[in-house]
């Protein structure tokens, strides 16, 4: 990007911590990495120190790659910015999406090109990655 087109990213950038770092590190590479429980087999998202389904500490990470599609499970359309950066992006669609190939995984993100008229429960979307800084990227949804 040259100086004229460089846009400063004002929205909150995900804070990495012990439990979520593998997810956000993969996001920076434009991949989806999800924690999985080796004991009961569920995908443990959001990730944590152990499985939120069975309590097992046998949790590992599974890389699902970059070709991620899903369906809107539920959503809201926000017309007021409650956090910085969103004032330039109204209305904001915030959607819970369940993944097509892994229906028990639900991931929240914005439907970037959606609005109240175009998004509904069942809308098909695919994951894209928005570069917030040179190092950081954030998964988002657009219409599939």
């Amino acid at each position, binding site marked *: 990007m040259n100086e004229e087109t460089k846009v400063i990213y004002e*929205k*909150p*950038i*995900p*804070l*990495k*911590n012990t439990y*979520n770092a593998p997810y*956000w590190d993969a996001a920076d590479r434009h991949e989806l990495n999800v924690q999985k429980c080796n004991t009961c087999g569920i995908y443990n998202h*959001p990730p*944590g120190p152990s499985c*939120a389904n069975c309590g097992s500490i046998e949790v590992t990470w599974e890389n699902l790659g970059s070709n991620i599609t899903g369906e809107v*499970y*539920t*959503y*809201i*359309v*926000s*017309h*007021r*910015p*409650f*956090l*910085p*950066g*969103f004032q330039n*992006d109204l209305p*904001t669609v*915030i959607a*819970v999406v369940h993944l097509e190939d892994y229906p028990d995984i*639900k*991931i*929240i*993100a*914005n439907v970037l090109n959606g609005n*109240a008229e175009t998004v509904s*429960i069942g809308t098909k979307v695919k994951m894209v990655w928005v570069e917030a800084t040179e190092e950081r990227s*954030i998964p988002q949804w657009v219409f599939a």
Partner: protein
Amino acid sequence: MEKIREKYAIVGVGESNRSKNSGVTPLELALEAARVAIADAGLEAKDIDGFMSYSEMDSCSPHQVATYLGVRPKVVKEMFGGGSSTELLIAEAIGLIETGQVNTVLIYRSMNGRSGVRMGGGGFSIDALQNGFDGGSFIIPYGAGSPGQWFGLFATRHMHLNGLTQEHLGHVCTSFYEHAQRNPKAFFYGKPLTMEEYMKTAHLSSPFTKHDYCLESDEANAIIVTSTERAKDCKSVPVKILGMAAREVVSHAHYWKNIDEVAADYVAPQLYKAAGVSPEDIKVASIYDCFSWVVLRQLEAYGLAPKGEVGDFVSAGNLRMDGKLPTNTAGGMLSEGYTHGMNNVLEIVRQVRREYEGTDRQVEDTELAICTGWTGPDVAGAMILCK
């Protein structure tokens, strides 16, 4: 909790002045509410040996309140919490009285919710929001920073699956605003809301308009809990706790992991078992109303309206004075005032006492009353009261 059926009672209720800008500290508001509640019970401050409160870092400590009432209590307890904390503290008070540690407990919630720390946002740093919520990094970067948005995700899907419409939300709002017109102390007294006006109001965050959000106010509320035996020494009509489920939680810590269930679904069976009554026995209600949809969802959870028919139930006017279940008859948090639910507790106590007898504010049948608390989809509590 079956063992304590009718053994404990709320014997005093009181509130401070309610305003947009109190001009005083939460401590002064709390003292005002406490003095009113103590006088209402016909007690003296020194009769209170337990002081409890909940807050979200926006209040004063129970030790301070006791001190400035000139009391040296046996127990003080403060907790971090919002909705359903009243029920939880009542249960704790009962436990302490039952085990002989205290006799009489005053519980309050005091906040400059409008002029001070506002729940609607702005009070917390962004990093604190991300770190404070388990899984916060998965919601805050997407702009989901307020309860209206989190609960809205539940509401959109629940409404979609159960045939609930904007107009059904409107019936909750207009019913409660109508109640507020009989309550000169309500924030929206003199400001009725018609369905036409409601339907013309834009979404702040779908499916909620500004009318679907609770208001923000500066005020304190207080209640006094003691044994039914000791209540005989009070001048007030005791309102007995028939049963309660102080708190129950959903199966997952993350709000949006299981968007199809809420904690109230788990509270309801415990509550009715404890009280030994059925939902159809209940004729008056205080239902936690931080958002209009939260009322619809709880009507379903507590079996007060059949699942799938909640919309018809509210459209038929059943939340109004002449309906099957007059609800939040002081106006609720949508139109009376906001103290994380305690104002709704005060009103249901006054209804059960029949304090409004002879006026159009008195609900006809108040034999059995329900009062619910909702922290969020994740945590809830409730109680059933009787005279």
